[in-house]
């Protein structure tokens, strides 16, 4: 059974790249444009991994992770931050909110897949 990944980014082009790469690797992909939509989709269908951008309107990445961690069915789900920031502070903030790890933009497709293998069976 293939895993479902929720991708959240307000940039259409990024969503497109993510979708293409992940589906090509055999994952199912659900996408959202911001944290709010992501929450709705995550409630509607159980996903196995969340990849989210940090800077988004309505509900940003860290807020999304915090919200999801509050839901019993997502307490132990791996969640990765997509970030252009290399700043330690953002990573710390993310971790404090419950993020599992991060992927730095720009990323190459195999880098993305390698990181996913670290956190998702």
């Amino acid at each position: 059974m293939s895993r479902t990944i929720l991708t959240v980014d307000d940039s259409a082009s990024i969503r497109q790249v993510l979708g293409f790469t992940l589906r090509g690797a055999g994952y199912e992909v659900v996408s959202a444009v911001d944290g709010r939509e992501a929450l709705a989709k995550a409630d509607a269908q159980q996903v196995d991994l969340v990849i989210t951008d940090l800077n988004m309107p309505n509900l940003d990445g860290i807020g999304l992770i915090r919200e999801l961690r509050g839901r019993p069915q997502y307490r132990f789900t791996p969640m990765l931050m997509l970030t252009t920031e290399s700043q330690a502070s953002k990573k710390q903030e993310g971790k404090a909110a419950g993020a599992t790890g991060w992927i730095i933009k720009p990323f190459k497709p195999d880098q993305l897949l390698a990181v996913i293998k670290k956190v998702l069976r």
Partner: protein
Amino acid sequence: MTSTYDDVFLQEAEELLGGLEEALMELEDRPGDLELVARVFRAMHTIKGSGAMFGFDDVSAFTHEVETVFDRVRQGEVPVNRALVDISLAAKDHIRGLIQGTANPEDGAPLLARLREAVGNDAPAPAGDADDVPAETATSGERATYRIRFRPAPDLFARGTDPVLLVDELAQLGPSRVVAQTRDLPSLDALDPEACYVYWDVVLTTDRGENAIRDVFIFVEDECDLTVQVIDRDGVFDNDAEYKRLGDILVERGDITEDDLQTAISAQKRVGELLVDQGLVTPEQVSSALAEQATVRENRKARASAGESTSVRVSAEKLDKMVDLVGELVIAQARLGEMAGRRQDPELLTIAEELDRLTSELRDSTLDARMLPIGTTFSRFRRLVRDLSGELGREVVLETEGADTELDKTVIERLNDPLVHLIRNAIDHGIEPPDEREAAGKPRQGIVRLAAVHSGAHVIVQISDDGRGLDAAAIKAKGVERGLLSPDAEPSEKELFNLIFAAGFSTAKNVSSVSGRGVGMDVVRRSIETLRGTVDLSSEPGRGSTVTIKLPLTLAIIEGLLVEVGGDRYVMPLSLVEECIELSRREAELARGRRLTPVRGELVPYLRLREWFHATGERPELEQIVIARVDDDRMGFVVDRVIGQHQTVIKSLGKVYQGVEGLSGATILGDGAVALILDLPRLAQNAVDGSERRREAARPGPAPGEVGADQPGPFDVGAGQRDAGTAPF
């Protein structure tokens, strides 16, 4: 696909830039509206990210700088004012220009300078931490073994981390051993199922380097205990194959303290103490045994270190390469020598002679470097003998002689398996069970003896036992049964014993787990023949049997005697040659067909190589007989001409010629021609067999083998000269 991405990006960028402009305009009217600032910031952030994704690096870089400035606005450090908005708009235009390719990238710097000025300082943006990308790290290249302890924080599940995935990832870096440590697991009623109590000890061998290891844990490194230590490197040669002891390893890992270890050890009872406690030995016996142990240990250590200081370990491959090179050198030197001889240039001749001498010495030294004492092989067999005796219910002791006899390294290696088989045979079939031995008046304990000695250019290795010996009748019966002998044949003892080497032959009534499957002796013989050696059996019923293996000292280069027969040149191993004498045609005729020649009072039979090789051409008036020692007897080989001594590099003839008897290889002469190397013992044996068969055929009555061959063969000595019943060899 890229073009579609580009299109999407361009479109998205256009939208974003449009939105950015709007927001900036509104910001001018409502400078305090933080939501607008956030929008501006997000737009730039997205453009920066997507730009980088799609290769617009200059866009990304520039936008990053603008974004950094605006971050200060976002933090509330800097108010929005008209100047800022103006410059921001200009920056936006520049970004669009960069994307569309209409702007000059150089214009970016002044814009940024103005922007920074507008917010009150021109400090460059703080650089982000550079290296947190889980990127590929350079491999260090050197293989090393690491001791890794990964102890995750108890709450790591809450961040969606699966520690087992990390351990799996680690295991992919190379061969590893993983032990999960569960000592911290509380009892079920105290257990929190959402906490992690387990930690992992991993011993990993990899050439990827420590960074690759740490990268595995990059997401959790702040919240876990990770220790990575190198415990062994490929580059370090430790003569002590014994690694640290268990207690020391545990202390190093911090699992126990040094004190704990010492307490435990001193609480341990030694074997000596236990035995004394049980009244089985006296304390004095124990002290004496300990003294012996200490003495021998010291002696061995002294020997080992004495040996160590004067010897160097060299890889076998290096030695082999040296031998190859020496072989080539010998051939090249032979060609030089030949040419020097032809040119008759005295200076060249002198040098050629010098070179000849030096290559001989080099050859000897190199081959000598490959020599090892056979003693190491012998001592390994002690354990084998002990185990086999136990398994087969015999009492056997192994005696060795000549352990420091040296053989070529390859020969020793290839000799190992045949020797193992022969020892097994000796114990299984030769030595009788203790009761049987006692009944026969022998000591209960049987002896298997391994002996090695040099003999000329050969090494003789003997395996003998004092068991029941070979049962000639049983062998004959088996031979008939297997169709190797006709029922009324009367083979000689030698022929009977030779049957044992035939494939599929085994007289063991019970096939034990150890031997008796009948696949052994033929393989043994073949292995030894591959080494250009011979193997023979001899036995005395009731007293024991002996297997004698004769091996040449070296496989690669020998000193040879170059001869000519019928226009072709051949090489004979000089080590077997005793002398050369002349044979005139008249003398040969005088002998009236008998191929015998008197040499200082002894009649030596000879073999005509001309006939053997069916050489054409006129027989020379004066021929030479090369008298060689073959299996304790002397035998002559008639050649046209003896050319001289020749350093012979033995080259294998190849599979096609494996079945040809009488040749043990070939060599390349100085002028490039090929000379075959003669296997004199084989030639002699074949000649004898051939003549015996002919004699059998000539006898009245049925006989095995060929019939009707009544021509004198190359080695017929004529009736009456020799007793046909006993073979001369």
